[in-house]
């Protein structure tokens, strides 16, 4: 900080104090911007903004099944670009009672002649249902590795909480499959992975 040329000593030290307080506020706000990233995730999970869901397994809650109503759960799989995989779900939709747990199988098939890593990114709609969806087990918690031509079947086990809002009678789970960057996957696998088809 540059020397303060004018004013008496009191004023000078007062200015210096103001400056340092401002700088502290600055640093704090810069850190706050980065802190917002994890905070946002927490906030999203709590409020269900944007269909973001818990990214780790939750426990099944033993609660009475609400026989009085059905909820349709839809499954949609999508392919992001750059991953030579086919992703299928055994059923497009199921009907469950709130409180009931269900299992649905997803299949992943690497259609290329090289090993590759992928990750299914989940999104849930409507957002008001997000908080009431418990995923006990999901392929979307982890990155998947598939050998050339390998086919893998993985389950999704979930439960819709009993307190799912009345007006929600259909929940859509969307999984978009994205490649995990080759460089990162190499580190994780500790093995050489075939070069991706980068253009």
């Amino acid at each position, binding site marked *: 900080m540059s020397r303060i040329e004018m004013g008496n000593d009191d004023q000078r030290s007062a200015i210096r104090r103001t400056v340092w307080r401002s700088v502290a506020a600055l640093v704090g706000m810069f850190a706050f911007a980065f802190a917002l990233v994890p905070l946002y995730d927490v906030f999203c999970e709590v409020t269900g903004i944007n269909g973001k869901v818990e990214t780790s397994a939750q426990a099944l809650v033993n609660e009475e099944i609400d026989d009085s109503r059905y909820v349709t759960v839809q499954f949609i799989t999508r392919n*992001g670009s750059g991953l030579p995989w086919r992703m299928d779900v055994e059923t497009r939709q199921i009907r469950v009672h709130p409180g009931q747990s269900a299992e649905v199988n997803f299949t992943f098939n690497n259609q290329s002649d090289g090993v590759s890593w992928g990750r299914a990114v989940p999104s849930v709609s409507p957002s008001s249902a997000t908080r009431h969806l418990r995923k006990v087990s999901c392929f979307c918690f982890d990155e998947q590795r598939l050998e050339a031509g390998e086919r893998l079947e993985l389950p999704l086990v979930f439960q819709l909480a009993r307190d799912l809002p009345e007006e929600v009678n259909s929940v859509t789970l969307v999984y978009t499959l994205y490649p995990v*960057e080759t460089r990162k996957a190499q580190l994780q696998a500790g093995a050489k992975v075939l070069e991706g088809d980068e253009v």
Partner: protein
Amino acid sequence: MAPKVPPQPSLEQSSTATAAGHGLAHAAPPKGILRWLLTTNHKEIGSLYLIFSLIMFFIGGIFALVVRAELYQPGMQLIQPEFFNQMTTMHGLIMVFAAVMPAFTGLANWMIPLQIGAPDMALPRLNNFSFWLLPVAFILLLSTLFMPGGGPNFGWTFYAPLSTTYAPPSTTIFILSLHIAGISSILGAINIIATILNMRAPGMRMMDMPLFVWTWLITSFLLIAVMPVLAGVITMMLMDINFGTSFFDAAGGGDPVLFQHLFWFFGHPEVYIMILPAFGIVSAIIPTFARKPLFGYASMVYATASIAILSFLVWAHHMFVVGLPLAATLFFMYTTMLIAVPTGVKVFNWITTLFRGSISFEPPMLFALAFVVLFTIGGFSGLMLAIAPADFQYHDTYFVVAHFHYVLVPGAVFAIMAGVYYWLPKWTGHYPHERLAQWHFWLSVIGVNLTFFPMHFSGLAGMPRRIPDYALQFADFNLVSSLGAFLFGFSQLLFVAVVILCVRGGRKAPAQAWDYAEDLEWTVPSPAPLHTFETPPTYQRPAH
């Protein structure tokens, strides 16, 4: 940090000098370009800021005219869509960060020390440094237009992933230039806070400060709070682009919507950074030319502070269509509507100040009155936009473009021009040329309304913003807008003419250039000598 500066006169010497006797006590400043490169004088730095922002206003204006020329009629006649997107983006970035913000900083540099009776800014060398960062930042930014792949083309809001994964290679330079501009504003803000809090004339309490000083103090706090967030968000972009992180990339577990939350957490206070000092200027001018004290000084201060605080709680009203949950949409709708209350208080206060005044219509007053009317119209469209269900129709249309141009052009820009006309006698010792200034005013008012009023209609009728070509039913509105834009653009040459003429000569202005003006700046001679208030004045509270 600061560049080397020539030896400064010592404190002991200068503190004895009176305002009028400055020439005797001070060493002659370096001549030519060096003088301007090295100056630590708040008045010279203020002038540098103002000249820089005027140049940038014209560059940003030329970009706008390129856009308006292409939109003059349907079909692509002049430029390609890629270049059109670069023009809209650059227009926004330059106008926000290089024209409006530096203009207010320039006015702050010139006037805050004069208005609080301080000899200079608290940190003069830092002041020099923060100014000279600006040309560096914006030469870098403008140079991206000549790079392979072109300049930034993702709008001034640079939403990810269009600005990350899908951005042109020059984006890294764009980020660098924004960082530099951000540092410049932050340093400027620290300097202003340090000056206002510590260097007021003896006897001047906070609640005695002119409103321009108050609004700038609050603006500086906003700058310190949100510029680091902007720095954070562009740093995350930089990392996503160059270091393989995925803050905003769904493929890596990130979230594009997070970008918008972070951006608007900065962006909404930023909007007020561009309007609060304008409130301050208008609150100085209206009482002067109504010859009547400002009505509700205290409520003006509280209203400004409330607007600033509320500005942190409304950011997601820019994001009503990204799929927020109902509760969040309602929250942001209510907080946004609340902003109408303190803003209304301000407008009512200005009008009550006019009521039973003795009003004359010199150029600064004309601009200030146009500000009140047209800013209020922008406020009304803002209130309409706050209504979330209706915003689903307004969002990202020309209605929004009309709204924010009403608050920024006849709002912020008119207030800056009002301020320039108001203080030119103090800066130059001459009154601005009355007739030319009148022409400038009337042509600007007509131009600005021809340009932006039809945009309300084209937006409501369904024209999305940021499109280089449009369906035929929008043709008439766009034609009028384009003609208006050229009228407005060219009439700004008159402004330059008035300023140059005023610097060169004109009717001589006394220290008290306007009869009823009562702040401290009017107690120093016109033109204000290079060094003022080296002996602090004793503040006299006005009698009323």
